[in-house]
């Protein structure tokens, strides 16, 4: 009997991470994630704008031509920008002001404009909601990794707490962001490649065992 139990795919966390593996949403992390607090603001804004937009845009009929659908997705995200920024300005006034351009850019992010069509909207609603959340968690993992590393190197601080003297002030520059995300992307590939190989070996050995018992 086939089981209807839903098991969420964790692809969005590492294997298809939108920053480190597919590079769908890179600009905010590469340029603006220069400290833990900035990374937190970027993650919250991405969650509030993209997740709600993905959930809402699901109700846009697929009969509408793709060109117009894309515009509607971006319009919904632009509307969501207003409450998102109002909230973030209340919680983190200074940090929000300094990264606002990268929050504004999220209105046309590829998770909303491309991934919805190729993946999310092909799934049932509940499954889609969990899947999109996992992709956003993947973004959070990458943003915090980059923000914390750069914050420690450039300012010697971790979420505002002083840990040591700044080791490398240039770590807050965009070029360092490119280099760091590139290196983290390679590490992510190495780890997910190992997991894939280990899974393939486990599958192969279980196949051999199954053949042996028959």
């Amino acid at each position: 009997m086939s089981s209807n139990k839903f098991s969420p795919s964790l692809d969005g966390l590492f294997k298809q991470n939108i920053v480190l593996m597919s590079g769908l949403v890179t600009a905010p992390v590469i340029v603006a994630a220069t400290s833990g607090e900035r990374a937190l603001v970027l993650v919250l804004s991405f969650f509030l704008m993209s997740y709600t937009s993905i959930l809402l845009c699901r109700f846009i009929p697929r009969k509408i031509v793709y060109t117009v659908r894309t515009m509607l997705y971006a319009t919904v995200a632009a509307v969501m920008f207003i409450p998102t920024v109002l909230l973030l300005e209340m919680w983190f006034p200074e940090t929000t002001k300094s990264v606002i351009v990268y929050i504004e850019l999220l209105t046309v992010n590829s998770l909303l404009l491309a991934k919805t069509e190729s993946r999310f909207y092909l799934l049932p609603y509940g499954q889609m909601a969990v899947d999109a959340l996992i992709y956003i968690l993947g973004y959070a993992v990458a943003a915090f990794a980059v923000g914390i590393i750069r914050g420690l190197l450039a300012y010697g601080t971790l979420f505002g707490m002083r840990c040591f003297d700044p080791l490398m002030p240039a770590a807050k520059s965009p070029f360092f962001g490119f280099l760091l995300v590139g290196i983290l992307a390679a590490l992510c590939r190495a780890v997910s490649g190992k997991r894939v190989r280990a899974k393939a070996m486990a599958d192969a050995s279980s196949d051999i065992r199954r053949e042996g018992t028959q």
Partner: protein
Amino acid sequence: MTLSTVLARIVTLAMTSIFLQNAIFDRAFGANVAIYASRKESHVTGFTLGITAMTTVASAVTYFIDKPLLKTEHGYYFLPLIYVGVIGILYVAGLIVLWKYFHSTYKRVRKYAHLAIFNCAVIGALFIDSNYGSDLPGYIGYGFGSGIGFFLACFLINIAHERLDSNKIPRIFRGYPIMLIYIGIISLALNVLTGYTSDF
């Protein structure tokens, strides 16, 4: 303002946004689109034409909207909504013109036209305009320069693409990771060359 002053201002701000504040190398606006577009030479041309046309025309249009809107205290909350509207209208108008007068081109580009228009490079250029543009020539200069800066980035990525994707590169770095490191090195070189550091 005389014509020569206007032209000088357009050229100066265009040069600034090509070299000093390059959309890709300095702000990573549309870095993912640049990496995608740089895979094929025809894509480099197509994307550059689409992005440059859109950033230039949309910049000129948004100047007249920004001027009254940014004077109000909370006007910036509505910028993304207005910019998406402007880009959307110009996008549809562009598609209609292509469909009516250049039908074969329309057939070729319709599959990826939305990628060239709805991306961070285009909307990012409009946000930068609203911060630095100040007057109409400034807006046009920044908008045009953003598109040409995108071309410069795509061209530099395109010429290195084959080597960066070759067997000589360790497997885990091949493709996307080494491309980011390559862009980072060019970004570093431009930073050193100009002595300019963005305030992000």
